[in-house]
């Protein structure tokens, strides 16, 4: 594709529900990242996938958060038992090979937990 795509663009859910956020990276990009951006805040790193290597999960804030990447392409970020403090924009980015290169960001998914 032309760029990184994310779906849904907006998600409203009730506290306690599970949500799944999807990211389609740029074709051929082997590195994929998830970030969280709260209103007016910077980028909080969540998780990093590189090829077939074990993902770097060091940024996940709790065990309610998980992510997987199937076939080295599409990634899904899952938040279980959502809380109001999970409300934020979730950004996905990809880069050609490894961390340390230019990242290409998707438009984000705006999550609102009521």
């Amino acid at each position: 594709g032309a760029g990184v795509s994310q779906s849904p663009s907006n998600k409203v859910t009730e506290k306690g529900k599970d949500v799944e956020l999807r990211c389609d990276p740029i074709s051929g990009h082997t590195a994929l990242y998830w970030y969280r951006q709260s209103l007016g805040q910077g980028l909080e790193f969540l998780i990093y996938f590189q090829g077939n290597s074990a993902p770097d999960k060091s940024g996940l804030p709790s065990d309610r958060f998980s992510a997987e990447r199937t076939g080295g392409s599409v990634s899904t970020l899952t938040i279980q038992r959502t809380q109001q403090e999970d409300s934020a924009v979730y950004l996905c980015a990809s880069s050609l090979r490894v961390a340390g290169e230019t990242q290409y960001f998707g438009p984000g998914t705006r999550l609102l937990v009521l």
Partner: protein
Amino acid sequence: QQQVKQSPQSLIVQKGGISIINCAYENTAFDYFPWYQQFPGKGPALLIAIRPDVSEKKEGRFTISFNKSAKQFSLHIMDSQPGDSATYFCAASIGGGSYIPTFGRGTSLIVHP
């Protein structure tokens, strides 16, 4: 991860003025310093980047100045335009490795017409 400190948090300039955003880092292993621009409702996009083998890089109205000894780098926007109004993030990373880029907290720039 080492923190990248970005300032100011917000900046207001008049059209035609110079916008300056500063970042400081601690990890001397960093060798790639990109700046990202983010418009409301959009994801960040690479604006300009520099590696420490040069002290300055210019692309149009945007210039990065890099001071390796001081471990600081800055973004200068010359002849600022209302269309430049956005949030700007600096970042630092180690190229070619598995080090996750560290981002500054962002600077909200407003350029008044």
